[in-house]
């Protein structure tokens, strides 16, 4: 099981019928949703298979991005 972003890339908000279908999928938990997306927890193969049958949708794994380090630092470090 992993966390995946399902994104509707078609015109307008995500279709209600598609949302219903995703929500009704066994072994899939919807963690959050927005106008164009749903964040779900499910098996990768399961997601891949389901999205292949849903035109206008794409999927990708959830990832994290680190906060850039903007603190000034000396370029030379003390010798041990």
């Amino acid at each position, binding site marked *: 099981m992993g966390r995946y972003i399902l*994104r509707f890339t078609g015109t307008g908000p995500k279709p209600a019928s598609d949302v219903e279908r995703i929500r009704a999928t066994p072994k899939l938990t919807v963690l959050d949703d927005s106008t164009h*997306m749903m964040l779900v927890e499910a098996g990768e193969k399961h997601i891949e298979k389901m999205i292949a049958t849903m035109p206008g949708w794409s999927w990708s794994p*959830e*990832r994290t991005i*680190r*906060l*850039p*380090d903007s603190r000034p*630092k000396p370029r030379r470090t003390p010798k041990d």
Partner: protein
Amino acid sequence: MKKNLTVSSDTSIALIRLSLGYVDCLRYFYRATTPKSGKGIKVGVVDTGIAEHPDLEIDGGENTVVGEDKTEFRDNGKGHGTHVAGIIAARGQPPAGVRGMAPAVTLRSYRVFGKGSDSASNYAITKAIDRAVEDGCDLINLSLGSSEVDEAIESAIQYARSRGSLVIAAAGNDRRQPVSFPASYSLSLAVSAMGRKGTFPSATTQRGEVASPYGTDKKNFVAAFSNIGPEIDLTAPGVGVISTYPGGYAVLDGTSMACPAAAGAAAAILSPRVELLGLPRASARSEAMARAVLEQAQTLGFGSLYEGQGLVR
């Protein structure tokens, strides 16, 4: 500068008092900022949130971190977004405060980093970009990035462009490495960081970021930390930048600082362009906005891999 310093309990380090009237690299290049700069432009800052601060006026926003209260779009405790916001939109006046590039913009905060957290989910970032577009933001500032391309964020940037919004992104601070994503994406405007000798005290850490190439004016340089590459569209001041910070003010370095400098400059350029801002919110609008900003860039002589079209003036 002290070298080989070992910090112990009895170490005494002299601090230099931060003067808010100091001419840092941002104020050196942008002296003519007025209280009305940026009027009519809505800017979304997708970051760690923006703290309450006497120099900042926040129109609203959203926290898109899953599991957190969506109304908590204030600073998450890290200060990064508050500094970024001040570079764009601070409304103070030295010596009591600081002024950003475009104080009259409508500023919105989209918090994508969890409370006290140093990491953001691509889902939260994607949702924040979507939300900023839906809220009518003309410019979306992304002072964040990663070496990995992300399909969901790409899709949100496509959506932004298709709805007339322009995304401006930081090139990254990996010391001359390739431009980070999403700055590397063709529909973003990628910003590198430059600095200028004499705009920071000589005994400060900023001295370590002076590196070639130098510009036609030899005091100007591309910051040693800045990523570079053919995807760079613009350069902007990002070394020793004074801006708002939770509880006061701070000096930070990074393409994270250069990005809002470019966004603020873009807001100031676009503000009087009513014919352009009045276009229907579609791709033609965002393309015209990008063109208008890039046309105002002037080379500093660094070369296109380092500065793209140059500094927005």
